[in-house]
């Protein structure tokens, strides 16, 4: 839209496509507000984004030479009387990026033949539309993704899928699809091994530690790059609580129709140097081999009894949850599971917080599966995009690589009357939302920002083998040494469409004590096999990335010395769920539109009335498509 100008008036102008911004955009657009949604980046979802492997590599490149020459320009000619300029500039919230590649850069010579086999296989199985162009640009990838998504949506509509819920059936269908895919992949793998080592009969299960099969070929960096578009690597590490506010919002607003989800299949924990499965449902407890029958009874009794609030519990208010658990005569096994894996709190967390957290966990169990969590296919970066899509469906206008230079303040009312965009156009508006990166300079210096420590690993096998290669695991890791942070880890299999087959994508997240590398690498060295680790019987890390990201949980919506109709949307927080972002989005929405319903269900496309009568009852559905601004 280089040549065209944008409309000169909007109700809401939003800068940044993170989750909070996108939800508010959808909510406003849904109730008829004219929304302009901008992002200076070339991709959606800001710090909530997902990248292909190659996309992530260029994102890393960008972060490392993060020089954004802000040409200061004089906008005074656009000023009207009684107006004042507020300059906007952004600052990256990413720090301490470190990348390690532990796999060979190139395929070995003898692998060349295997590789060629691989390529032909892919040509046979892969969708025709996807060119195997490894130099593909990041943006192109994104367009492809958008296209894919649209197909998906149409497909759903064709099936007259009017379910108002996160569609279980779809999920199952998907799983079937994945299973098919799995078969393909398996045959692929088989061919590779055949080509390389015809004599070796290799077990295909990653459950067997790589140590026991030294002949197993490590996936090379070149392969990772070549299969890069199979990856969807999130900058945040979160899961969706199945009764959390995000899931409820997706259901309520019908935004769920734009995405598909996979159940997190198990909860693991790291204890005494071993990865164990945490029994959290009745079936898990029944099948568990770690627990004695008496422990089983005690655990079940505790889980059923703690759902209700009781007097004897309130006696422990303010005292550590661990103490409460100990006094319930639960053994050490159970204390560990309940404290670190189910409540997901630490030793000194007060009892009332621990109990509330336990109840939340239990409330979410069994809605969709045997764990309380869901994960969106293609990564968490899909979620903000789904809301953007909803916004666009109801008329919102989208521009990427498009930013705001300054806000125009009406000094009399202390309100922002208009904004000036990066092309120098003046746009009037009633409300402005900014992502938090734009208000860094205005932050209170007294409280230095908190950071999250993140690590992303690509590994070659699962931490805890099982019958299925497609487990999606949540791993809780208590502090490994005194003072170390408690780490939440998510291990994704290729069935979540976030990594190539034969690999696992592992996200680690904790509150920063120091840099991400210092916080997380000792743990990674013990739990995985890297060149530094002593124990080689663990999943090998092929590639890994460390970085710190600013913790958005402390960000205030208002204030910051900004006009009263300008709101600040915080970036990702360190919690596992999305409560913070969704609560904030609803808060901002009600500040803008106090009387309106927040994200009411979107009508079925066939029920929408267009100008000049009802929608055509047959034929392709005319849904406003998502505008991509380049």
């Amino acid at each position, binding site marked *: 839209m280089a040549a065209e100008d944008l409309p000169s008036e909007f109700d809401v102008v939003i800068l940044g496509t993170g989750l909070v911004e996108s939800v508010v955009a959808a909510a406003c657009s849904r109730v008829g507000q004219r929304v302009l949604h901008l992002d200076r980046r070339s991709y959606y979802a800001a710090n909530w984004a997902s990248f292909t492997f190659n996309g992530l590599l260029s994102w890393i490149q960008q972060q490392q030479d993060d020089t954004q020459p802000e040409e200061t320009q004089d906008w005074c000619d656009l000023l009207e009387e009684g107006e004042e300029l507020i300059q906007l500039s952004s600052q990256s919230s990413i720090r301490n990026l470190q990348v390690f590649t532990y796999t060979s850069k190139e395929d070995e010579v003898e692998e060349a033949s295997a590789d060629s086999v691989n390529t032909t296989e892919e040509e046979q199985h892969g969708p025709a539309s996807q060119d195997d162009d490894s130099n593909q640009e990041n943006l192109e990838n994104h367009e492809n993704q958008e296209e894919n998504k649209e197909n998906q949506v149409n497909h759903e509509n064709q099936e007259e899928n009017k379910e108002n819920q996160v569609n279980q059936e779809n999920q199952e269908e998907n799983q079937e699809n994945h299973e098919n895919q799995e078969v393909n992949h398996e045959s692929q793998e088989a061919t590779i091994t055949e080509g390389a080592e015809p004599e070796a009969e290799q077990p295909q299960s990653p459950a067997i530690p790589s140590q026991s099969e030294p002949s197993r070929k490590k996936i090379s960096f070149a392969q990772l790059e070549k299969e890069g578009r199979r990856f969807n690597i999130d900058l945040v590490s979160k899961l969706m609580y199945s009764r959390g506010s995000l899931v409820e919002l997706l259901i309520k607003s019908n935004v769920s129709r734009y995405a598909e989800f996979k159940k997190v299949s198990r909860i693991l924990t790291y204890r005494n140097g071993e990865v164990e499965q945490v029994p959290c449902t009745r079936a898990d407890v029944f099948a568990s081999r770690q627990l004695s*029958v008496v422990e089983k009874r005690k655990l079940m009794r505790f889980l059923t009894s703690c759902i209700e609030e009781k007097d004897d519990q309130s006696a422990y208010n303010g005292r550590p949850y661990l103490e409460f658990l100990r006094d319930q005569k639960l053994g050490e096994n159970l204390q560990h599971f309940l404290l670190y894996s189910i409540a997901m709190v630490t030793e000194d967390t007060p009892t009332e917080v621990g109990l509330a957290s336990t109840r939340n966990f239990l409330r979410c169990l069994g809605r969709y599966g045997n764990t309380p969590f869901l994960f969106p296919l293609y990564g968490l970066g899909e979620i903000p995009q789904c809301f953007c899509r909803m916004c666009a469906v109801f008329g919102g206008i989208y521009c990427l690589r498009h930013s705001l230079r300054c806000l125009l303040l009406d000094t009399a009312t202390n309100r922002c009357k208009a904004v000036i965009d990066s092309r120098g156009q003046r746009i009037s508006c009633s409300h402005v939302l900014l992502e938090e990166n734009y208000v860094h300079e205005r932050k209170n210096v007294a409280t230095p920002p908190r950071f999250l420590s993140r690590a992303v690993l690509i590994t070659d096998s699962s931490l805890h083998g099982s019958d299925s290669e497609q487990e999606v695991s949540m791993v809780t890791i208590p502090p490994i040494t005194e003072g170390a942070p408690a780490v939440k880890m998510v291990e994704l299999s290729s069935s979540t469409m976030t990594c190539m087959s034969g690999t696992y994508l592992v996200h680690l997240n904790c509150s920063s004590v120091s840099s991400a590398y210092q916080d997380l690498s000792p743990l990674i060295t013990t739990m995985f096999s890297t060149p530094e680790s002593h124990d080689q019987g663990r999943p090998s890390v092929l590639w890994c990335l460390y970085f710190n990201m600013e913790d958005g949980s402390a960000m205030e919506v208002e204030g910051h010395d900004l006009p009263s109709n300008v709101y600040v949307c915080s970036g990702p927080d360190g919690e596992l769920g999305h409560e913070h972002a969704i609560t904030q989005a609803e808060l901002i929405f009600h500040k803008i539109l106090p009387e309106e319903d927040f994200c009411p269900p979107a*009508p079925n496309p066939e029920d929408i009335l267009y100008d000049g009568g009802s929608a055509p009852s047959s034929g392709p559905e005319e849904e406003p498509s998502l505008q991509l601004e380049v």
Partner: protein
Amino acid sequence: MHGRVKVKSTAQQEEEKRKEREKKLKIYIAARDGCFTKRKEGVFDDEALQLTQQLLSSNPDFATLWNYRREILMHLETVKEVDEVQKIYEAELLFLESCLKVNPKSYGSWHHRSWVSARLPRPDWARELSLCDRCLSLDDRNFHCWDYRRMVVKMFNVPVDQELKFTDRLIGSNFSNYSSWHYRSTLLPLLHTTASELPPMQAESPKSNRVCEEQLLKEYELVQNAFFTDPNDQSAWFYYRWLLGRAELEEMISCLHVSREEEQVAVVFSRPVNVQSGCLLLVLDGQPHAVEWKSIHPRFKHSPVWICNLPPGTISEISNEHNLTVHWTEKHSRKDCTLFTGHAESWCQDSATDQELFRSELSVEKNSVLQSELQSVQQLQELEPLNKWCLLTLILLMRALDPLSYEKEMLAHFQTLKEVDSMRSAYYSDLCSKFMIENTILKMEYAEVRVFSVSDKNLSTLCHLDQLVLVTHINLSCNQLLCLPPQFAMLRCLEVLEADNNSIGNLEGLYHLPKLEAVILKDNKIATLADLEPLTSCPRLKRLDLRGNPVTQLANVESELAKLLPSVLDLLL
């Protein structure tokens, strides 16, 4: 406000939906009528197949159409090549899958599927099995699918151990599933019956329903995991009861009694039987006698006790010795008994203790196994002191181990059971009565007496009366009995009945008791003279205590009673 999306109103939507439905209905009715006409005309062509398919895919419970479809398919079988038939049936299976998606519990679809599978020239049972597994993973209680699966397993000859693994999987995902546990109980006896090879499913189930010890221990572990995880889930407890087993009683004659004075023979069987003429053979001193067998009470066609009267004079001479044998020809069982000179009666009885009669609730497992089971259930009971399943199982285990020494604990557990499960308190009372009677029988046997005394034991019912054929004195006083049931007539030797302080209002069981002399019924609920009517059949009744019964308030009761029971000399009112 501007810019809002306009949406059709509910009325508009309803109207559209209604029109849509009307249109669909028209098409449906037309197709249905088309099918009926074709069937009447005996047309079995592809078009009919198409039409029925359309209808059935929207309504898979239309039995007539399935029938028509089968007629068409059977016709096609006669005119097409085998390969074509195979293809047609394969297509039919695919079609059925879509029907099952519409309604996974459609009788018609499942029945048609088993019909098609059976007729398929080259059936793919593995595929059918995986279809069943998928259905069961969606709904593990779909009994249609369970039924169909049984057929597939039988046709496919799935090995028992594989089926056992299948139940492992189902129980693992949800152990509150009777179907899986029950299926397991049918598989286990087939497993390891011969150590070397596993019999296929259709092998006839062996006579003994016992499971080999090694497997049994695994089962105990599995089921303990289930009831420790959720002690309120009954399915695991029921399976546990099944596992602990039930010894099967041998069918035989357990007691023979002959009375010189009455010239009567009583035969006691190990279970109630219906003695037809010819199946019991009575041999007296080497001579078979044709006698008429009667059950102890006209109410019973089946009874554990049967009596016959010998021809008058055959054994009445006290100085004679007689040898008596009764053959139960059907079951090859016999009992002998000698009536010695100078004896008025004689008997031959198997001991209840030796037969471990009252352990049959739980079977003949080794004591060590039962002991360790008792310990683990006790452990659970400490954690869940008010769980009824746990308490009940505890009682059963205690009885299997040692009924007499656990008596006190058993009574305490029954008390708790009645409190925590008050809806079933009457059931627990009856069960407790039964166990108390069993214990008394054992004690009587140890003491080698013919006196049976269970006073003040809160009895609510009488049972095991067939074990009391030889008892001469019975004391039932201070219980909560409401009647003397017809089975009471089994007490052939009874002379004195003490039943004061009960709530007895019915004496039906005092029927033709030849030796009964004294009946103490003080403080009961006998209200009318008719209630006393059965006593008229007891020829030797001399003493009757009716004090504290409503009947004593009737006018002229004394004279009426004298009329009714002229033999009674000692009447207390």
